[in-house]
């Protein structure tokens, strides 16, 4: 059987049957920006950051199966402009005040904003009013930073088998909720040992009493931009995301 290839920005990249464009690219150490994708979980293609042009059509690289001879445009000014706009919309929709966030320096949203040179949120800020949930003894929930990637929903439902998280509402009122009558995390069987506790790409699900442990300058994305950490991103497991 001859090897199958896609042409990623003109470069032949081999893939095996069933691999998506994202998986083929990551195996070849090529970065495609993404937020809701995680190698341990079934892709759902909701954040749209990984949008590429495959044979002239916009598709999500994390859900689109690779096909032999497929021409894929990824790192182009056109796509990066669109991705930057999506990031700006994510930033203004929530309250992303990086200087006070424990996740700063290892936050994928922030790292992507650096990677795509987002200098301004551009759009008018929503400044939504979202209460934090500090009820759980070990974990803090700061909903201000939620980007609705559903990684915690998928982890809790598909791996932990607990269904602690869900998205509720539609459109602009869509938001993350906790599956308890009180709505409080303390009233669920959620624990720090759950996958869902370690999968948040931003600063919503935070381990208590561990903030700011790594000094500024030494944090994950201080050391190296996210675009140069493809190998780590491809083999990352939830345990290292703490």
């Amino acid at each position, binding site marked *: 059987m001859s090897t199958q290839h896609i042409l990623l920005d003109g470069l032949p990249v081999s893939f095996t049957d069933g691999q998506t464009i994202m998986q083929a690219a990551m195996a070849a150490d090529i970065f495609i920006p993404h937020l809701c994708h995680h190698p341990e979980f079934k892709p759902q293609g909701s954040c749209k950051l990984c949008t590429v042009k495959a044979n002239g059509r916009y598709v999500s690289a994390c859900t689109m199966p690779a096909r032999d001879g497929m021409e894929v445009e990824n790192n182009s000014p056109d796509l990066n402009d669109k991705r930057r706009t999506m990031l700006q919309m994510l*930033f203004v929709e929530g*309250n*992303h*005040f*990086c*200087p*006070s*966030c424990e996740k*700063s*320096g290892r936050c994928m949203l*922030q790292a992507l*904003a*650096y990677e795509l*040179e987002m*200098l*301004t*949120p*551009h759009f*008018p*800020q929503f*400044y*939504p*009013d*979202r209460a934090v949930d500090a009820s759980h003894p070990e974990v803090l929930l700061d909903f201000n930073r939620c980007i609705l990637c559903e990684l915690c929903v998928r982890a809790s439902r598909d791996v932990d088998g607990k269904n602690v998280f869900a998205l509720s509402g539609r459109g602009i009122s869509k938001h993350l909720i906790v599956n308890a009558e009180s709505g409080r995390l303390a009233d669920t069987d959620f624990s720090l040992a759950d996958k869902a506790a370690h999968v948040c790409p931003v600063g919503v699900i935070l381990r208590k009493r561990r903030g700011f442990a790594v000094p*500024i300058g030494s944090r994950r994305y*201080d050391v*190296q*931009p996210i675009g140069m950490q493809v190998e780590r991103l491809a083999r990352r497991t939830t345990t290292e995301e703490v």
Partner: protein
Amino acid sequence: MNAAVESRKLRVATTSLAGCFGCHMSFLDIDERLFELLEHVEFDRSPLTDIKHCGPCDIGLIEGGICNAENVHVLREFRHNCKVLIALGACSVNGGLPAQRNHLDLGQCLQEVYLTGPGIVGRQIPNDPELPLPLDKVHPIHEIVRVDYFIPGCPPSGEAIWKFLSDLLAGRTPRLGHPLLHFD
């Protein structure tokens, strides 16, 4: 850059609105490069000169967001006078720390701070006519006027400010790469 342009120093104005002067301190962190900068620029209105109003300028640097009526007037004065207006730091770019009051009711904030909070003497909400009225929400400056460039960071490092200004003075498109571009 032609000789005629080079012979004239660029006029730069700076101000701190709803900010903490941290960005100005960071600006001073370019240290001895200030001498090099002063070969190319002269300062108009700025905390460094104590000039109170901005005249026609080439570059305006705005630290801080917009939290009261005076901030709006100063920002408009800068936009009116500056050919290039730059948002300097997190607060002017996205509201920053002062904007963390945006989900609170302003009246209740004032009451708690000046009337009902612990350890308060002389319980009275300041109402001197000299004081600018606070806005109900804090805004980043691009929501009020057109802004040409943004330098994020809380504060942006001296290195980032220097890189940005030296690019701009040399006629290059200013660019902040890793690790100069940061939001904290």
